[in-house]
């Protein structure tokens, strides 16, 4: 198994996913399952903390794309925080910052809800 893991925390009404390792074609489905589970249990205020995310491939970004509308449609949002520069660069290259709230610090994301 590739080096990737997800841990879930609750900060008041907000669900925080701490993702770490490499998010690529093989591990994308793990993130998908976590997001699906949150949406099904009506936890629609979601922060994905990327502090320990070392690498992200397009398939990983695709998971975010696939669920953002659903979450927003329910009145929630997915916000991303604490990315390192390399990971942010990939998000930026593909134009994610126009769509997603990407903030430096998780606390800013919490406040933004």
């Amino acid at each position: 198994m590739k080096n990737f893991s997800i841990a879930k925390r609750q900060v008041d009404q907000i669900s925080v996913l701490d993702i770490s390792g490499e998010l690529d074609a093989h591990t994308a489905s793990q993130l998908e399952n976590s997001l699906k589970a949150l949406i099904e249990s009506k936890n629609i205020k979601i922060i994905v903390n990327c502090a320990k995310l070392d690498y992200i491939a397009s398939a990983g970004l695709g998971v975010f794309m696939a669920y953002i509308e659903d979450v927003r449609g329910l009145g929630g949002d997915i916000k991303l925080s604490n990315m390192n520069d390399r990971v942010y660069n990939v998000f930026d290259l593909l134009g994610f910052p126009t769509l997603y709230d990407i903030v430096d610090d998780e606390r800013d994301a919490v406040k933004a809800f």
Partner: protein
Amino acid sequence: MNNSPQSNDERRSRFELRTLLETSRLLIESQDPDFVLNNLLLITMGKLLVPKGMILIHKPGDASYLVSKSKGRDWLTEGSDLKVEFDQKLLDTSVIHGKKYSTVFDAIGIEKESILFNLKTSNHHLGFLCLGPKGTKQPLTGGEIEFIESLSIISSVAIANSRMFKELRHINRRLDRKVHDLNTLLELSKDFNMMVDRDEIARVFKFAMLGQMLIRTFFFALDIDGKRSIISISGIKDAPTDEDLDKLFGMEDIARTDDVKDCAFLADNNIDLLIGLRFQNEKIGVVGVGPRATMEGYGDAEINFLQSLGNLALLTIQKTLLLEEQIVKKRMEEELNLAKTIQEGLLPSPIPQIPGMEIAAVNVSSRQVGGDYFDVLKLEDNGHLLAIADVTGKGIPASLLMANLQSMLHALAPLEVTLEDATGRINDIIYENTPSDKFITFFWGKITDDGKTFKYTNAGHNPPMVFKKDQKEPILLEDGGVILGAVPTMLPYSSAEYKIEEGDLLVFFTDGVTEAMNPEQTEEYEEHRLIDCVNANRDKDANGIMNAIIRDINHFSNNIQYDDITMIILKVS
């Protein structure tokens, strides 16, 4: 006191030089054209005490100027557009002032006493620095004009630089994006290589598409052996009907759906672009994508990427199909090998020896399993049973029937039944249990324990040949009845007795021997060649004769075997 005009001039020019130097340093280091322009305007206005000034930036291709900066009252406002165009001669002029340019000032809409400094590099007109008349209404001196001109040149270079820098940054970013695209392809080709699960491949393909193109709406339809279906989907309200799918597969390889009118599925789901994917020139995949979240369209680069990624997914899926096929084939092969072993076990081994006779037998299947059968059985009364048979068709169906025949024969052999009756029973069972196009040609006979009599029944089999000592033409053992399995036994089978004599040579064979073909497929081996071959090798022992026949057939057919070859050679010593 340094009041003389000369020292005043000196002081002034030193000041101007210093201003130029500082400004140029400031401007050259700045990557921000806005900052450069603002500085240029403020410095010149302050230096010359001009209350009105603005900077016009040329918009090539638009026959207009953008009012980039504007200071002072009732001149054009910043950000507005000025529709005006000047001839090349004016654009080559560095400083524009005086009466002869009054039309120019009118065109811009500023006072006739104004002055324009051309902002240009050696080959590029960037715009104008426009300055209104001095507060004192005094015209600018030659020195002042020269100073502003220098400043304008430095500023122009700085702007050109920052523009170039901006463009480079843009190019760099596009390159970064390209590198990322390529990396994605490379990485996915590696990832796909390790995947055998089609659902997983389709899912990864979907996410890569969504992430890479920043889209929500996506589908991937595949045609597997003529069956079209959606294998991956995102953001689509209703899956397409079979009719929709046929339409999608019938479209151009690259279809922008603005032009497609008659497909509700595309319109309802906001699909912008369809990409057809081909494998060996046949369209077997269609990818549809919705609008990009960045609001950018699909250019050549994007279409290229979609095609590449799509082809990659398609090939990977093809690979899994081939792999599955191979696994099935492999399993079939293993089963066939097992069947072959079982079938070989149905033939007698070792072949029982009959006192006073030499016996040799062979069965060569053209495939792994076949429909030929022979047997040699020692009976309770010390007699021997010989049998040879050929089931129509080849392969597994024939081998099943052969096994069936073998078991019947072994069940009947110990019983007190005549050959004729037993043949009739076997025929009835075969007739009842097999489709009407399956038959068996069958010959069997019993050699009495003293080895003197051979009683036989021939059910439509190639008549075995008996070569008598000193006779070249064989006797044919033909008595019996019709082939097994064609009709129920209404007429009983008959049998005949042959008296075995010293020196007799009996040759039993299937039609694989006599119907072996020459390489041109024009001629069969036929009985006469068999007879010639036996006669030529009569003096050899049973094994030697058998091997000679096989060699002769192989020679005739150039080792290409189409049918099973089975023989029993019996030589009475």
